């Protein structure tokens, strides 16, 4: 069922709501917008006067150095953190005004770290993603089963569905969490550093999965550490530094040696990726380069 999700401008069909207001008209209406938002934890402001937009149907990557607030912004976009000032809009309406399950059918999150209950098996954990569609009377409809099957299939976990999650490798386990998000069947998916702690093959395997999901029409927002991955997979970048948005736009125009120096304090050479042609950041050797005046 997840294969039929949203084309740009059309939210996914919702199996049991039917009342969902349509996305604002026009193909360019962004799915999530922050308007002059202040975001932080327990009185500590991480980002102030934050105004960003996630274009509909985009693969947006949020990049920036450690501690720049990118994960905090993603958590605000995903309704985990409320804005203490300003507004965060989901499909044109304040995120807080949605009934929680309704919002959960539009927007899902792959958190940086999740907790698997003791002794849970793969299929059970993936099935937890169906929570926004379930209630006391309908806890397991045919549509739930279809979504779980499809999510297992897309993440190549069908063979492993009966295994204990604790027995899987790190790469497999991250695929299980991705499958749980996939089973949630949302037109918008937020990913918080989805490839951290994975080896390079598993990183690209997972990124290819997200690329496929994006090509099927989903809007994807990912916090990424690896700039080359961000440039290769995303079509829209949000560059953050010190709680501010430095610039936004397509990777080709955003990723420049000047920006990398300004934001990360790293002198580098930006060259086209020999495989995809997207910008690649190659750090210069500080011993052979004369410092900039």
């Amino acid at each position: 069922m997840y294969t039929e999700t949203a084309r740009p401008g059309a939210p996914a069909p919702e199996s049991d709501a039917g009342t969902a207001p349509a996305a604002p008209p026009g193909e360019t209406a962004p799915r999530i917008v922050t308007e002059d938002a202040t975001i932080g934890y327990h009185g500590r402001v991480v980002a102030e006067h934050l105004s960003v937009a996630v274009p509909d149907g985009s693969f947006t990557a949020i990049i920036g150095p450690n501690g720049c607030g990118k994960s905090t912004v993603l958590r605000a976009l995903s309704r985990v953190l409320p804005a203490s000032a300003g507004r965060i809009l989901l499909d044109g309406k304040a995120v807080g005004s949605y009934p929680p399950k309704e919002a959960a059918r539009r927007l899902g999150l792959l958190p940086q770290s999740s907790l698997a209950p003791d002794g849970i098996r793969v299929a059970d954990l993936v099935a937890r993603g169906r929570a926004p569609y379930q209630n006391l009377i309908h806890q397991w409809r045919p549509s739930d089963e279809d979504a779980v099957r499809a999510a297992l299939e897309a993440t190549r976990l069908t063979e492993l569905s009966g295994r204990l999650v604790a027995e899987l490798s790190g790469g497999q386990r991250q695929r299980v969490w991705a499958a749980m998000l996939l089973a949630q069947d949302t037109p918008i998916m937020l990913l918080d550093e989805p490839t951290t702690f994975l080896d390079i093959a598993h990183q690209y395997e997972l990124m290819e999965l997200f690329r496929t999901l994006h090509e099927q029409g989903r809007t994807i927002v990912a916090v990424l550490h690896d700039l080359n991955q961000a440039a290769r997979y995303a079509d829209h970048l949000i560059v953050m530094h010190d709680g501010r948005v430095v610039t936004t736009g397509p990777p080709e125009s955003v990723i420049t040696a000047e920006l990398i120096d300004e934001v990360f304090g790293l002198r580098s050479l930006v060259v086209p990726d020999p495989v995809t042609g997207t910008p690649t950041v190659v750090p210069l050797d500080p011993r052979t380069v004369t410092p900039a005046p």
Partner: protein
Amino acid sequence: MTTTRPRVDFGYAVRTVRSPLFSGRVGVRLAVVSAALLLAALVVSVLALGLGDFRLGALEVTRALLGGGESFHRIIVTEWRLPVALAAIVFGALLGIGGAIFQSLTRNPLGSPDVIGFDAGSYTGVAVTLLVLGAGSYWNIAVAALTGGLLTAFVVYALAYRRGITGFRLIIVGIGIAAMLNSANAYLITRADIDDAMTVGLWHAGSIANVTWTPMLPSLGFAAVIVVAAVLLSPALRRLELGDDAAVTQGTRVGAARLALLVVGVATTALVTAAAGPITFVALAAPQLARRLTRSPGISVLSSAAMGAMLLASAHLLTLAIAEVYRVIPVGLITVCLGGLYLIWLLVREARRQYGTPA
């Protein structure tokens, strides 16, 4: 209604239930184990109904329960012994539910209300009411137990709160608060006169032997409310197992859900404490024993309730059997003895698992 096998391999036997009124997915082992535990609790209770100064066979008990047999037997069974047997089952189930809620919220098998001080708080509430205010009616004690338990819960929560709640800090703070409350309780007893001190001391042992229909009927009403609330909240409890971020994005109002679960969990112990005194270790042991028997992921409220009922009904039968050969011992002392052994085993296992090896 139809039941079928799902087309997904869950790694264990599962049946899908489909009807216009209900659709669900039921683990076969979970259902069978829970039903067997409830059945065992009923059988044990029927045996217990026959034991006492006037011994009755299981057949006579069953006949009396169904309204037949001699009228004297009916009085013994339904008037005197049935409230006690019901108390064992219902209170055991409530303690199992309370333990399941708190162990799930704290993500720690030690995080049960009797360990983290809520029992001690209920006891303080009752001791103050009985010894200082001199009020001893069922309603006074019930309100005192609930207030004491809730106040303690909020104090423990507030002291353990630092950018959210972690199970481990909650447990350590709870154990500390429980120790302080117990010293306050001991002080209250030293300044009381001997009769009142005896009353409170007996109450503290945790006994259901003297439960009559008068406190049992309102208790059953409250128990029904608590069970319904626990059923309504159990989906939110399951979502909270995955962590707050995942729970929010799966459509949970995390703050409201956790507060409601906290109140329901405290209400389970407070209700039992009000009617019978603190009965410890059932809430601690039932969810974990049930989890091992059912092999279900996480903690299941239903099987914990069934296990709690079975444990307390069995402990009650054991007190009656001991009374046959020795003397009457409060059921709370039995659960403490058996539970103590369980706690030692659990602490050793947890210490090895969590703190023995560097994380």
